[in-house]
């Protein structure tokens, strides 16, 4: 059996009386897209927060490439290979796309405690960042401020930032949100390509995309993973229909 790249074991998290995460376990194997779905308020964000490191779980653990990272900071998990994009893009808006990716490149090269050499004239750094942007399809848009880019482009910049850290796993939080139909198709194709190198934990509302892309689906309801299985199994499950897809399915 292949070893999982990302593994979550028995996570619990409560906020006061609210149990936001109830004993959730899931894993992500090489080359797969594992989708995480669930209705609003199912605790997806809390779960992602615990995987990425923003939220400390009450109990349970998170492993990245076999190493426990439950007590590591967000930055440390990023360096160890957890790349991610956000539901609402989180970038330095005032500077160019290239500048944003350059930051990831410099982090992957090691220290940010270099005080004298000017990044503006650091051709290696600039080109490496430019290449990542080309890879995600933003060639020619490198030097435009992120604030001037469209939502879809910003998401591409985020993915480029994540890829520049040479991640072992990608955590994509609703990457299709805010994209037009063409944008979603392009992104779907892109994800199909990426998965061959880096497995993806995909949180997505767009069910078409999920059913098309995912190898496995985990359904989160009320903080608990009620079901996990292949696309067919999930489609067929009455439990899921009731809890998530609604009566029309």
């Amino acid at each position: 059996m292949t070893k999982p790249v990302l593994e979550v074991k028995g996570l619990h998290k409560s906020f006061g009386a609210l149990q936001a995460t109830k004993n959730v376990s899931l894993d992500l194997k090489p080359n797969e897209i594992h989708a995480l779905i669930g209705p609003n308020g199912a605790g997806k964000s809390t779960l992602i927060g615990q995987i990425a490191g923003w939220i400390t779980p009450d109990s349970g653990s998170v492993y990245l490439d076999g190493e426990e990272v439950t007590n590591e900071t967000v930055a440390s998990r990023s360096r160890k290979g957890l790349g991610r994009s956000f539901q609402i893009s989180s970038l330095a808006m005032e500077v160019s796309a290239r500048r944003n990716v350059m930051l990831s490149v410099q982090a992957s090269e090691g220290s940010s405690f270099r005080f004298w050499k000017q990044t503006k004239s650091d051709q290696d750094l600039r080109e490496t960042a430019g290449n990542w942007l080309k890879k995600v399809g933003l060639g020619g848009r490198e030097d435009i401020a992120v604030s001037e880019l469209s939502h879809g482009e910003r998401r591409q910049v985020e993915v480029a930032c994540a890829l520049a850290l040479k991640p072992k796993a990608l955590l994509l939080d609703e990457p299709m949100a805010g994209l037009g139909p063409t944008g979603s198709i392009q992104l779907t194709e892109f994800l199909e390509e990426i998965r061959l190198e880096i497995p993806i934990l995909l949180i997505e509302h767009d069910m078409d995309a999920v059913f098309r892309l995912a190898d496995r689906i985990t359904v989160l309801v009320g903080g608990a993973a009620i079901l996990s299985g292949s696309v067919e199994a999930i489609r067929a499950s009455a439990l899921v229909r009731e809890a998530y897809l609604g009566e029309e399915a």
Partner: protein
Amino acid sequence: MQQTDTAPKPVTMPKLNREAMVNFTVMAILLALPLWASSIGEDYYVNLASLITIFAIAGVGLNFAIGQGGMVSFGHAAFFGIGGYTTGIAAFHSFEETLFMAMPFAVSGTNQMLIIWIVAMVLCGIAALAIGAISLRTEGVYFIMITLAFAQMIYYFAISWPTYGGEDGLSIYLRNELPVVDAENALTFFLICFILLLSAIFVSARLSGSRFGAALGTARMNETRLATSGIDPFPIKLTGFVISAMITGLAGALFAELNGFVGPSMLSWHRSGEIMVFVILGGVGRLYGPVIGAALFVLLETYIGEWTQHWQLLLGLALLGVVLFARGGVMGMIAGRARHD
């Protein structure tokens, strides 16, 4: 002037050199006036230029924290004062020929500025490390308040330390010395301050353009981004805070030399506010902004203050105008919005 036309396309336009020209003009005036004043024997104006220059250095320090790192410190008077007291205490022991401390090793005073500057900056660095390590765990208004609280603690400590004058402060009877040049001469002292201002701006610019600067700038713009890119924000911000404090501390040391006096007022929260005014008036994040801010402040204080003691009313109005209508400060008004690549 058509600066409004530049507003919609601020970022990629290579509208270079407007700011550079403003910077050059400001520095040229700042250099030319005291040269002229000195030639006609008006040392008063030379000292006024020195004061502007010293305040500008303090502002450059704070601007690095606010403009680059997004750390709105309301306690930079602590570092200004520590720099000042370092000068005062070193001169005091040198003058009295006593030891600063005898145990565990003997430390005497000194009247050498170079040594005093280094000691002042190191002490400010250590203080900033301690203050920053605690304060940077908070954000926003809490950060402002906690830096203020630390500065006030040091203020009250200085007041209650009778050895060094307590509430009355400490006089520096003879200006400290530099090798080769005569620092007692007003123009020479101005030139020293001017060179240090240029150095502070240069260092600040270099650091801002480095990898460290890129990380620090991202800490200001979007800390989530910084962490997600694999860089822990805390050590980056702490380092930025320390560097900022060291620059402001150097200004404090020079301020004490200029006045031949250091007192608790250097540490008071009014002073923190003033340094912040230099930065905001000139333009937050603009390299030469604090020079303009400090110049306006000192000129308002000197000339409007001459015929009314309510000159701060005017300062308040100026500040109000800047905050409401020109977020980029005076520099933003003259040179347009800041450029990024």
